């Protein structure tokens, strides 16, 4: 048997086939259904999937961020300002938002260089909190609590918007999955996660890989935030806030399965759909949504994706026997 790491090539090719099948469904179904609401939910899920994957890539080198909304919200506000106030083209404002967020992510690696664990998590949370208070305070520029409205979207057609969001999500997923799971970085990330000191003692320049993950995390969170702003055409301080935005991305990743890239993306679809589904429950919506998320975490502790993968592997093996 030929092996790739500890997985057989047969399993890998079957997984690819299943992934391709899901992608085709995701492309065909919205066009076939022609349902603006479901397509809107899928668009929003795709945007949050990029955001959730960006949080997960940080976790590959043990950078637990409780303030990841900082990057998402920062890019959303930058895009909104450039687009709405300075009348820049939506694509230019998105690219500028992403670029600035990436540079800020790089810059943050200097003061955050020595922070680990809870200290890192709290420092990031502090950053998000400061940013939230700042946009509320400078209402002349940021619109305060009301936020910024009147952002020009890429396109107004709801299906086209979905395909843009889904396409960017898919490209982000392939890129981040390759970096985190298939490139030579994959082994190094796992080694750092298992034992940072042992990795250092084998010559791994740990801070360089932490920086790489931080820049990737900031860039893709920025990408999600910028697309979010141009899609919804409005931003408010909530996009920067720990609750709801960071809390949401952490829940998505935990439900989907941390350290898998695909899991957090799947978690985003699950959480956004649950959130929308329980809208029919009116008053108990938040309670029902929260309880369902807790039940998933309790009974599928590694995240839905791991259990799904195991189930698919089991079915493939059972079929072979």
């Amino acid at each position: 048997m030929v092996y790739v790491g500890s997985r057989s090539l047969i399993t890998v090719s079957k997984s690819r086939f299943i992934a391709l099948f899901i992608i085709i469904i995701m492309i065909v179904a919205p066009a076939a259904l022609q349902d603006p609401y479901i397509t809107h939910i899928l668009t929003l899920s795709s945007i949050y999937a990029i955001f959730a994957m960006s949080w997960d890539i940080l976790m590959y080198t043990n950078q637990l961020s409780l303030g990841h909304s900082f990057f998402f919200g920062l890019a959303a506000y930058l895009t909104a300002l450039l687009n709405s106030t300075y009348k820049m083209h939506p694509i230019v404002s998105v690219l500028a938002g992403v670029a600035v967020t990436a540079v800020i992510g790089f810059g943050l690696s200097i003061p955050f260089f020595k922070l680990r664990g809870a200290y890192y998590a709290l420092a990031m949370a502090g950053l998000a909190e400061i940013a939230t208070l700042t946009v509320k305070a400078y209402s002349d520029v940021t619109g305060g609590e009301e936020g910024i409205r009147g952002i020009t979207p890429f396109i107004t057609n709801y299906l086209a918007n979905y395909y843009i969001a889904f396409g960017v999500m898919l490209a982000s997923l392939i890129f981040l999955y390759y970096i985190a799971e298939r490139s030579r970085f994959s082994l190094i990330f796992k080694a750092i996660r298992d034992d940072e000191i042992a990795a250092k003692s084998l010559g791994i320049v740990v801070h360089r890989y932490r920086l790489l993950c931080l820049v990737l995390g900031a860039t893709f969170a920025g990408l999600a935030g910028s697309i979010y702003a141009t899609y919804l055409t409005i931003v408010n301080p909530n996009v920067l806030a720990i609750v709801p935005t960071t809390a949401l991305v952490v829940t998505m990743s935990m439900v989907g399965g941390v350290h898998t890239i695909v899991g957090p993306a799947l978690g985003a679809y699950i959480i956004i759909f649950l959130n929308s589904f329980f809208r029919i429950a009116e008053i108990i919506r938040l309670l029902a949504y929260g309880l369902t998320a807790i039940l998933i975490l309790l009974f599928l502790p590694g995240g839905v994706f791991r259990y799904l993968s195991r189930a698919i592997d089991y079915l493939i093996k059972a079929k072979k026997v």
Partner: protein
Amino acid sequence: MPLLEVKNISKSFGGLAAIKNVSFNVEKGELVGIIGPNGAGKSTLFNLISGIYHPDTGRILFKGEDITRMEPYELVRKGIARSWQIVRPFRNLTVEENIKVAFYGGVLKESGLDYNQRLEEILQTTGLLPYREQLAKNLPQGYLKRLEVARAVATGAELLMLDEPFAGLRVDEIKGLMSLITTLHNRGLTLLIIEHVVRSLLELTKRVLVMHEGRLIKEGTPEEVKRDKMVIEAYFGEESEVA
């Protein structure tokens, strides 16, 4: 020129002096043992040479270059690798993947050597070939110790520093590991070994350094060390223990 020169290094933690003015050399191709009772400062000395800590005073030279303030990853690239007293495998990686991480971090990537060929050699030499696909967390202790050595070798180091390689092993496992260390030494590697299992270390090495309360109190052949009154008082208690 000695491969490693440790010159008058001292290190304190708070008010406690862990290493006091220690000096010694290691020549290329030597196998040197360091022994001493608990709290003698052996592991701190290893941590200072491998860049985990930096000495308060003194200098450390490797092939004549001052490496006193270098970080662990820089030292690996200079050719110094270490193992740990309490093994630190990458538990969720396979044996093979553990070794590959060391390739990425070490000097081999610049040497143009074929990774796969080197991997096979290391797995063969260390006796880990049958376990190559096993996750490190499933390996028995004896093989985890071998994995520590395998990873250190995979960095392409010239100087291997092994921190209590025999600790926690059964007699047969110790013999197997001693044979592995001898093989590596015969292939030209320089080794510096801290050990509590004194009997095994004295069988392996021709030169021993003895530490006590942060100081180097004796340097000599195993026979000289075993006979030294100060060493017996500080470490052995009774001579019969090492006879």
